[in-house]
Every structure is written in structure tokens, then in C-alpha cells.
């Protein structure tokens, strides 16, 4: 009897030691940018809050307008306006930050600013790591995170995992789908660009290769506030440009490092936290979760050893019990 207990504890402590000391050896690093990844750059200082991008997104993705919330909220009928937040019919949302008198655009105190919320298409998506059926997959070339309706079991673990609260679920349907921005990949395949960038009149949202957009964002941060710059409209390499004075940016690109970086990056004159964009560590949640998982289950060594110990102990115990009878 004592022998068995000793064996058991030996195995258990070996496992614990392995788990805690070889953490770095098994550590799964945060994933990085696929080289041909495409993305979006949103510049809040150019945004006029017209919501043409919402209309573009709905048009290109065949999603219905959502009037119910605003009509319920304000007790009115027949509004033209749309949902109050991202939801299962709204994959792209413009929201406004207001402070004090909200008199001046792109000003933190007594000012206001717009922000565009949609899927970040992270380089190391938490949703992809969480999904047990591989329904959410990051395309290895374009980096777009798409949802596969034939794989998804509707467990909503992705909703738990996503720090930006992006995936939305059709709770009101008997046969529900998961809804989130998929960067209009069906249009990109035919040579077009995303609906939001297509419809944006001011160049606040532009489409392009992620590395080009990152370069453009850095370029803008190096410009002086007030100097005139030709902002491209629709795509980062567009010939159509709008000459405008450069705004007073917060010296930071949101999405460059958050959770390992994302393909949807943003510039703003108001601190990003005020715009509802969470402060995130550089190490992705996926890396953290998977490191733990792999540490305990690498090569199934731990489980198999443990199983061996359990089975042996059980065998001896059963045999003893049977011989006692």
C-alpha cells in the first residue's frame, strides 16, 4: 500500500516540477504578421461620423438595418439611423466619445471624437485559439479571420475569449450564426476592397497591405500638427487624395502591439482608452492559454504517465479486494 502511494506522489511531483520549471521551454510565443496580410487604417481625426462605412458594410454583406434599439430607446418611429452597438446584424460601428461641452472635434477635454469598431483581425487571435471546432480560422496568407458555418457548434467560447467583444451571436434564432467582420474577403477575392473603405468619403478608413498601412500610420505620426498633407482616400496607395491639415495625434498606433498586433490599426487625437479600446499586454491571451495547455499535455507524456500510475494502482487494489472476498 505504501509503495503505491509513494509511486503516485513521485509521479505527481515529477509532473508538477516539469510543469512549473519548463514553462519557458514549452512557452508558445505570440504569433506574428503573415507577410501578405491585408488590413485597415482608421484615422479618427479624419472621421466626420457620417457612418457611410456602416452603410457600406451592410450593403456589401447583405445585412439588414437595425432600428429597434434606437426606436425603443428614444420612443420614436421610422428612424433612419441604425444599431447602437455591434450586434448580430452590425459588423462595423461608429461610436462617439464626448467630454464636457463636447465643443471641439478631436479634443480630449470638452471635446469629442469618433471611433470605428470592428474585428481587429489579430495576428494571434484569441478566438481562433479558443474555438474547439476550428470554425474561426486565420487565413495564413491574407490573415483574415473567417467563420466557418459548417464547423461551428455555437459554444460561444470565442465571445468569452475576444477582449474586444467582437464576435456576435444570433441568440434570437433557432439556427443561429456567429457574426463578425470578415474583411469582405468575398469582395477582395474579386479584386475589390472592403465596403467600409470603399464608402468612406474622407479617407478616415483606408484599405491596403498591413505593412503599408503601418508605414503610413508611422508617417502620419511624424508629421507636424497643422501642416497640410494629402490623405489618400479608399486605399493607402490611392491617387485620389484629400488635402487637409494634419491633426494632433496621440503618439501611438493602436493595434500595432496589442495582443501581439492586429491588422486593423488606428490613429486618434484622443487617448485610445477613452475611445473604449482596452489596454492590452503584448503577449496574446492565446499564447498564455496554450502555453499552459501544452505544458501540461505536451506529447501526452503527463497524462499517459499518470494513466499508467492510476491503472497500476487500480489493478493492485481490485486484485486485493477480489482476493479478500
Amino acid at each position: 500500500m505504501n509503495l503505491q502511494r509513494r509511486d503516485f506522489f513521485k509521479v505527481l511531483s515529477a509532473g508538477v516540477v516539469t510543469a512549473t520549471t519548463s514553462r519557458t521551454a514549452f512557452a508558445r510565443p505570440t504569433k506574428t504578421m503573415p507577410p501578405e496580410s491585408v488590413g485597415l487604417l482608421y484615422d479618427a481625426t479624419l472621421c466626420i461620423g457620417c457612418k457611410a462605412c456602416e452603410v457600406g458594410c451592410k450593403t456589401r454583406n447583405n445585412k439588414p438595418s437595425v432600428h429597434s434599439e434606437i426606436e425603443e430607446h428614444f420612443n420614436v418611429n421610422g428612424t433612419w439611423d441604425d444599431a447602437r452597438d455591434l450586434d448580430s446584424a452590425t459588423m462595423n460601428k461608429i461610436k462617439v466619445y464626448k467630454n464636457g461641452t463636447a465643443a471641439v472635434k478631436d479634443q480630449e477635454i470638452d471635446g469629442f471624437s469618433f471611433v470605428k469598431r470592428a474585428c481587429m483581425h489579430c495576428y494571434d487571435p484569441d478566438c481562433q485559439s479558443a474555438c474547439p471546432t476550428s470554425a474561426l480560422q486565420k487565413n495564413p496568407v491574407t490573415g483574415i479571420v473567417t467563420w466557418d458555418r459548417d464547423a461551428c457548434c455555437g459554444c460561444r467560447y470565442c465571445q468569452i475569449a475576444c477582449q474586444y467583444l467582437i464576435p456576435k451571436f444570433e441568440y434570437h434564432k433557432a439556427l443561429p450564426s456567429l457574426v463578425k467582420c470578415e474583411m469582405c474577403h468575398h469582395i477582395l477575392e474579386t479584386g475589390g476592397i472592403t465596403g467600409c473603405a470603399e464608402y468612406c468619403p474622407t479617407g478616415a478608413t483606408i484599405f491596403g497591405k498591413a505593412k503599408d498601412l503601418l508605414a503610413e500610420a508611422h508617417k502620419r505620426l511624424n508629421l507636424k500638427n497643422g501642416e497640410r498633407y494629402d490623405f489618400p482616400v479608399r486605399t493607402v496607395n490611392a491617387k485620389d487624395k484629400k488635402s487637409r491639415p494634419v491633426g494632433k495625434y496621440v503618439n501611438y498606433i493602436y493595434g500595432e502591439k496589442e495582443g501581439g498586433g492586429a491588422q486593423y490599426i488606428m490613429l486618434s487625437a484622443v487617448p485610445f482608452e477613452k475611445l473604449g479600446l482596452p489596454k492590452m499586454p503584448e503577449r496574446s491571451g492565446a499564447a498564455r492559454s496554450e502555453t499552459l495547455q501544452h505544458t501540461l499535455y505536451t506529447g501526452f507524456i503527463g497524462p499517459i504517465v499518470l494513466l499508467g500510475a492510476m491503472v497500476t494502482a487500480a489493478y493492485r487494489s481490485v486484485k486485493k479486494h477480489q482476493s479478500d472476498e
Partner: protein
Amino acid sequence: MSKEGSIDVNTGQRLTSLEQKGVSRRDFLKFCTAVAATMGMPLSMAEVIAQTVGSAKRPPVIWLHFQECTGCTESLLRATHPSVEHLVLDLISLDYSETLNVAAGHQVEEALHQSIEANKGKFILVCEGSVPINDGGIYCKIGGRTALEIVKDIGPKAAAVVAIGSCASWGGVQSASPNPTGAKGIHEILTDQAVINLPGCPASPYNLLSTVLYFLTLGKLPELDAMGRPKFAYGRLVHENCERRPHFDAGRFAEVFGDDGHRQGWCLYKLGCKGPETYANCPIQLYCDVGSNAWPVGTGHPCFGCTEKGVGFTKPIHQQATVFTVTPPATYPDIVEEKTSGGWTIGGAAVAGALAGAAVTAGIKVTKRLADEEGVKEDKAAKDKS
């Protein structure tokens, strides 16, 4: 045709003469009410205006034309409620107007001179058109005198100076780059006196009528903004009054003339509408009294900012406007939108409470039973011992 001095100025006589012309008392009062409404005054003002109009001596008005297309006069002639040629000619004594004078030449210049002399300090000077200043102002001469000389001569003698149209307000189309004639607005010439600017191309006639009536009724100028424009007409952006604003707010834009969005009357911001940076009351006033949509945007063409210096005749028609008041409406979604569903409901709370209560009751019961049995056992053990 002016009828100065030939009409009796006593109370009631004006109305009688109007009735003779087919303007009923009811129509007249309607007109006064409309004027009060246009100026954003309480409706009780309508009666005061009626009395003023009905009883005042017709004030003399001198209307000068400089570098202009005469569009402002033409637009005034198209005012219809009531038929303006009757009313204006009865309300005011139009002593000089190059468009409407029957006489010409030396004769009319003499009439002008006489009117100025007779009404010094009491007449209203309306100026249409810009004043060129380059090369001594030779680019506009009337009766041998430059516009510059004329306005500098007559202006100080007027009781009030009104600059009608964008040309008179800030130079208008003549001032478009490179502005070869050095066209200037009236207030840039008459720097020592107040000039009311009523820009527009053409200016809305009702803005002029309302301003004049306001002055006659209350004896003072209406509240003006920093550029000398009456706030009742120029206090808000076209963008703020535009009937297509809901489309802007919802992001529905016409992309190309004739596309689906354009046909459905969507916002013209992407086609270069300058509404967001232009102050005027066109969407409310409309033009020509032909009903709704009788203004540029209403007909499907973007506003080009005709009233605004720096916008009209300066910015290309299809260049995107700078949106001044992007201040979002109160209904705009906030960063954090409190969700109305998902929280506790009476049903949920009730059943949760009931279950908790039942569990606690059952637990207490069982505990008591166990304690009792324990007590019985202890008694039995004690008994057995003793």
C-alpha cells in the same frame, strides 16, 4: 413706379389702397405673420408689423447697383406673397433703382440727387454688387462716377445700409481668384458705419423684406453675427436645416449623379455639398414659392456655399466641405452603450429567491433532524452508560 408724396400717410389709408389693389386685410395680416415667423419673432409681433406697415409713411429707399448680375433684384421681383411689386412699392418709396426706373439718364440721376437731399439721414441704402477698387475703381462707372466714389458719397448719408447679395457682402463672383478688378464688399468700403450683409447668390428676397420690416417696426437692426449678417437668416448652417440631414447622419450618400442614392434623394456630401460650412436659411425659406425642394440640394445639386466668403466661388464645387459642426446628435451611440436587456427580471429574481428559500428551509430541516437524532443517540449512550 414710385409714387412719392402722392399717397396719404394717415392710418388706415394704406390698407384701403391695398384693398383697392386686391389685397384683402386677411392676406395682409398673413403677410405680416409670415414676416414675423421668418425672423423668428413671436407671432404677437405680426400685429405690430401690421400697424407699422399700415400706418407708417413710406420710407425712402435708394437701391444702387455696382458689379452685379442683377440677380438679387430679379429674385426680389419674384417674391409672391403678396405680389411684391405692389407691396414694395407701397411699403417703401423706391426712389432709385436702375432696374426698375422708367426714366433714364440725366433725369433719373437728378431724381436720385433730389431724394438724397430731401431725405438725408432718413433713407435706407440698399447696395447690390461689389465695388472694384483697382486702378482707381474704373471698372464700374455709373453716370461718369466710379462705384467707389458713389458709395463713399451716398453711404454716410443713409440711415441704414444694406448690402444685398454675396457681391455686395464680400465681393461675390467678381472677387474669385485672381480678382482682377479688386472687387470688395460694401462694408470693406464703408468702414465707419454698420452695414447689414445679406449674402446669397441670389440673396433670398424674404431675408431682405424681413430685415427692412424689422427696422421699420422696431427702429433698430436685427441681431447680427460677427459678419454683419442677421442671425435669424444666417445663424445656422445649411447642414443644420437640410432635409437630407438624416441621410448624412445615417451615412447614405449619393456617389455619382444619377445613381440609386441620388435618385432616392440621399445626402450630397460626397458630391461636394458645402452645406456643412455654409450659413444660410435656404432649406427653410426655399425659392420662388413653388413648394418643397425648391432649393439647390432639394433639386439634387450640392450646395456650393454661395453665401460664404472663402467657400462660394473659391472652393471647387465638387470638393468636399469641411464639416464645421460635427457635434453629433444626442442619439449618437456612445462608447459604452448600456444594454437594456439581459439584466434581472421579476420572474428570474422571484424564482431564484424561491429556490434559495426552499433550499435554506430544507437545509435547516435536515440539520434539525440530524441534531435531534444526534441528541437521541447521546441520550441513549448516556443511558446505556448509567
